[in-house]
């Protein structure tokens, strides 16, 4: 235990001592809140022109999280950089020479990253929600309404999981260029397209981000998924755990 707490301290020093931590996490917050607010403002203005069906399935909570699609990319960037910078700088050799127990090394990194993004994710989620609802005016909902608090907490968890998923993938791929090259287009475009196209929709709804975002919905019909909000989040947890386990297998087996 003493050993683990020393390594945790060390990983915290690593995370807080590079600038990329501040700018990626700040960007995640600003983009999510800013874009969410903008879309809420526009939605409020256009609400009367919406179709009856759209009004029926209108999910004020989920609309306020509209910025998360872009904001999550900064979270992913943070997760990727924390790991792949070790490899691209060669720091990994110093790190593993200091902590040869690779399981402890990975676990401590995951805990430090996880707690930090959970904090930032929760702050982002709550700020986004309250700002968004105030801009939606009469169409907004209250935090006390049924399912709303779960959705807002879910937003923070979603951001945490997406960052940890990126950590796992970065441990598998190592190279920052490769990891960014795969994760960024994937979460920015491909997963969304697959989720929209009818032919692929059935499978795409089980992708980590597509499944995870159901936890931020309050009106079931807004996403129309065969699973509930918590189950959606659970699917995302499974993806994240799988990525981390695979990342650990690579770290354990391969030469540093």
């Amino acid at each position, binding site marked *: 235990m003493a050993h683990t707490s020393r390594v945790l301290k*060390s990983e915290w020093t690593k995370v807080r001592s590079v600038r990329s931590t501040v700018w990626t996490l700040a960007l995640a917050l600003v983009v999510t809140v800013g874009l969410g607010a903008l879309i809420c403002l526009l939605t409020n203005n256009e609400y009367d022109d919406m179709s009856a069906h759209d009004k029926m399935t209108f999910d004020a909570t989920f609309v306020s999280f509209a910025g998360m699609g872009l904001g999550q990319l900064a979270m992913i960037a943070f997760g990727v950089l924390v790991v792949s910078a070790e490899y691209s700088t060669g720091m990994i050799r110093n790190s593993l*020479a200091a902590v040869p127990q690779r399981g402890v090394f990975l676990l401590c990194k995951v805990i430090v990253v996880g707690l930090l993004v959970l904090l930032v994710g929760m702050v982002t989620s709550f700020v986004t929600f309250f700002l968004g609802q105030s801009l939606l005016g009469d169409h907004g909902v209250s935090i006390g309404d049924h399912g709303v608090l779960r959705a807002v907490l879910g937003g923070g968890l979603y951001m945490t999981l997406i960052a940890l998923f990126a950590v796992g993938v970065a441990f598998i791929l190592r190279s920052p260029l490769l990891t960014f090259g795969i994760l960024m287009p994937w979460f920015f475009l491909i997963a969304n397209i697959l989720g929209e196209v009818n032919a692929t929709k059935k499978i795409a709804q089980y992708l980590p981000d597509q499944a995870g975002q159901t936890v931020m919905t309050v009106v079931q019909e807004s996403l129309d998924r065969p699973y509930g909000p918590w189950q959606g989040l659970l699917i995302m947890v499974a993806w994240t755990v799988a990525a981390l386990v695979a990342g650990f297998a690579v770290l354990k087996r391969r030469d*540093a």
Partner: protein
Amino acid sequence: MIELRGLTKRYGEKLAVDDLTFAVRPGIITGFLGPNGAGKSTTMRMILGLDSPTSGDVHIDGKHYDQLQEPLHHIGALLEAKGVHGGRRARDHLLCLAQSNGIPPRRVGEVLEMVGLSAVAGKRPKGFSLGMGQRLGIAAALLGDPDILMFDEPVNGLDPEGIHWIRTLMQRLASEGRTVFVSSHLMSEMALTAEHLVVIGQGKLLADTSMSAFIAENSHTYVRIRTPEPERMRDVLTAQGFRLSAGEGGAIEVEGDNAERLGELAAAERLVLHELSPQRASLEEAFMQLTAQAVEYHAHAGPEGAPQPAQPPAQPAQPAWGEEWNQRRAGGQGRTSEED
């Protein structure tokens, strides 16, 4: 104490490290010598548990590396000047390493002072010169005040002042009773610092011996004689069974190092001597000779695994020294990151 037993690393078809067995002893500087691509860095990475051996093992103070809970207290290593996040201040870089091994934060200031980087403790290493980067790496190696220090090509690319500083530091560390294991591809560098030598070529152990024994074994020692009567001198020496060759400017070169006997012989024969001097090849020459043998072998002996031509004593396995280096030059392929 570092002990290697049958350490082997294979990358696909290629043996990067081939059955290395030797021990690095405390209190002296042990030089780890071999041309680029010989497997020195791979060996050092295996010592640190970074690369896993294909077979064989390494023990540090009698334990496997990953059995060490606080390895920085046992062994400190400088692997390459890089290995530092360019955006993390020097102080923080050392702090995170220190914390992971339970080393108190004040030690960070001490090692920075020792390597002369106190003034740039709060700077990001991105802007460091090669020499400063090297000093930061050495500061990290010294953090845990370890009994074993391992430096991979520490003087590469340094200016004369930096080289002098590292040499002095290594000598001081060894004189404090520590184990100092330092790699180089420069024999001249080893000649100035190392007391013991481990020489490898193509991943194979070529020599594990003291510096002076290495030179004696691998170099040509002879006695140079100048005399106004060279013909008579030659006759006398040949009659005594000495092997001679012609030196520069009419000098006679007698194989061996028995100058006393030669002097006595000359006196007995009433031969005038103008010079009687034992000559010993430097480490550099000894090293070159190994290279030359390998090149010769390579040219005449055909494919790998063919029987070896005449070898110097006590060195049963003599691989094609520098062969890989030549291939690398010609082909430009392979794992270049390995030794660079």
